[in-house]
């Protein structure tokens, strides 16, 4: 009874950590440029598939990981440079369609160069699993959790301590004022897209040993990350992490106790329920509309 509960909780937290990283990526780009980046899921795919392909090309695992992260970061910066920056005065819906176009484009490239097959990566540790209180804990879950925690802390330090982090914050608060203060806002926005892609790719990479990867895994993971970001209230980093964990746990409990057929529907039911009572998410600020 309890071992089952522990089991579901472990897998929920593991899944939640992944969603939290994706949601942080959404939040970062949303804050910097008010764009909902529907190509966010593709960065996860590049992280996982990139590593698989580089390992297949003969690189040792750590080098392949670094290679995939670099590839995704470059893709993120290029996405901003080539598709978002030239359309900066466009309507919100237009920008959404541009990021959707980008996601189809990236998925298409992955399918063309890397194929349609499903791939797995070896687990990061030799020991597969530990037994705690009757429940099995995958060592990969521990890797996922610790890497997620390190990334979240690093991000917090980056924004509060580094000059670059503060420049991103300043740009997201008021672009014109930031530019007047001497910040090259277009460069800063590019950096934000790069970091967001890096976060997504890291999430996609560490989850691949347990969930497999393919050219199209980004669609569902990206949507769920968007849900997690919206649960927290778009734009709130704390909200993104809380939203991610909430999603992961509810999904795991639903799959375990109720029905695995409907586990993919859980995030969307939760977000509808939350928006019904809190139209700006859990941590979102009440926005005033100017006339």
């Amino acid at each position, binding site marked *: 009874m309890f071992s089952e509960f522990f089991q579901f909780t472990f897998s929920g937290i593991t899944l939640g950590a992944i969603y939290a990283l994706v949601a942080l990526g959404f939040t970062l780009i949303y804050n910097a440029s008010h764009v909902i980046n529907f190509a966010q899921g593709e960065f996860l795919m590049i992280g996982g598939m990139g590593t698989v392909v580089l390992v297949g090309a003969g690189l040792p695992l750590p080098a392949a990981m670094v290679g995939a992260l670099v590839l995704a970061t470059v893709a993120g910066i290029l996405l901003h440079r080539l598709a978002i920056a*030239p359309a900066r005065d466009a309507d919100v819906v237009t920008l*959404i369609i*541009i990021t959707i176009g980008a996601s189809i484009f990236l998925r298409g490239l992955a399918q063309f160069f890397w194929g349609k097959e499903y791939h797995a990566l070896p687990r990061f540790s030799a020991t597969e699993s530990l037994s705690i209180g009757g429940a099995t804990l995958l060592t990969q879950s521990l890797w996922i959790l610790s890497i997620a925690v390190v990334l979240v802390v690093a991000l917090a330090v980056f924004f509060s301590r580094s000059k670059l982090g503060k420049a991103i914050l300043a740009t997201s608060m008021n672009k014109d004022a930031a530019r007047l203060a001497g910040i090259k806002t277009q460069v800063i926005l590019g950096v934000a897209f790069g970091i967001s892609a890096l976060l997504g790719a890291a999430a996609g990479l560490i989850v691949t040993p347990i969930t497999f990867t393919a050219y199209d895994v980004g669609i569902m993971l990206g949507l769920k990350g968007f849900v997690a970001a*919206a649960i927290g209230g778009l734009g709130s980093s704390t909200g993104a992490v809380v939203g991610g964990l909430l999603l992961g746990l509810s999904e795991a409990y639903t799959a375990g106790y109720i029905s695995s057929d409907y586990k993919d529907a859980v995030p969307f039911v939760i977000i509808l329920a939350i928006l019904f009572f809190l139209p700006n998410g859990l941590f979102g600020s009440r926005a005033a509309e100017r006339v």
Partner: protein
Amino acid sequence: MKKTILMSPYGGLLLLTLILALMPLAVSNDFHYDLLTKICLTATVAVGLNLLVGYAGQVSLGHAAFYGAGAYASAILTGQYTLSPMLALLSAAAGVGVLAWLVGRPILHLKGHYLSMATLGLGVIAAIVLNNEEQLTGGPDGIGLPPLSLFGHELSVFGEYQFAGLTFTGVELWYLLAAAVLVVAVLLALNIIDSPLGRALRALHGSEIAAQVAGVDTAKYKLRVFVISAVYASIAGSLYGHYSGFITPTVASFEHSIELITIVVLGGMASTFGVIIGAAILVLIPQFLTDFQELEMVVFGAILMAVMIFLPRGLLPSVLQRLQRGAQ
């Protein structure tokens, strides 16, 4: 600039009717008729969605749910409850209208990205339900529909029909039906745009608060246009189901919702004739891209991005603007 009859909305409707009526002269085989029929049905959904997105400024990323609901309701009502197709289509449209009214009340209070999120969520849930409720929907394998019947006459794509000494194939008649539906859909949309509802929608698109202050009951009008656009989608969905004779949950998928909103934005928001062009392009592009085979997605994604970056207002409005500038 001189305002010719063709520049006015109803002149546009005349032009559209003319083009649709002359189309049979330009095409030669069943495959072309098939594409034309699909364009007309897709355009019908897009014209309805454009009322919501283009005119009222409310983004829906889950509109395929209503299209799928119409198609599946027709399939289930004609199959398991043996209703006649027309009766099923009308019941489906009424049911979807009520459904849209029920879900629209809470979610239309949401703004911007939260509304996108909520409509997206509804769409994804609808697709998952259709996939999982196998007893009712046939699950991922899909479900069949009988041919449409009008006033006791069956309209099958495989049939041949005699009218006033002329012989028509079922495919040709289906095209004529879909074209007629599109013309009626456009006529209704133009009337709505030109009515107090249309003016209220444009007011709340500009600024919802300002519209409220000016005495517009924005919640009421938003809900009304949401229901109208859902009914458009439901009717087109039912017709598509009878036309193709078989549907799968992909009709209600997230990808299909994205395709619909893409048509509206690509063709030109708040441009009824623009979205028809958008629908034609989205239906035809895959045909031209089959030459690229493996690179189809790459090319499609690139085209989509390029059009939206260089013509952010959509194809038709941008082209018309250039023409006007040239004329001056």
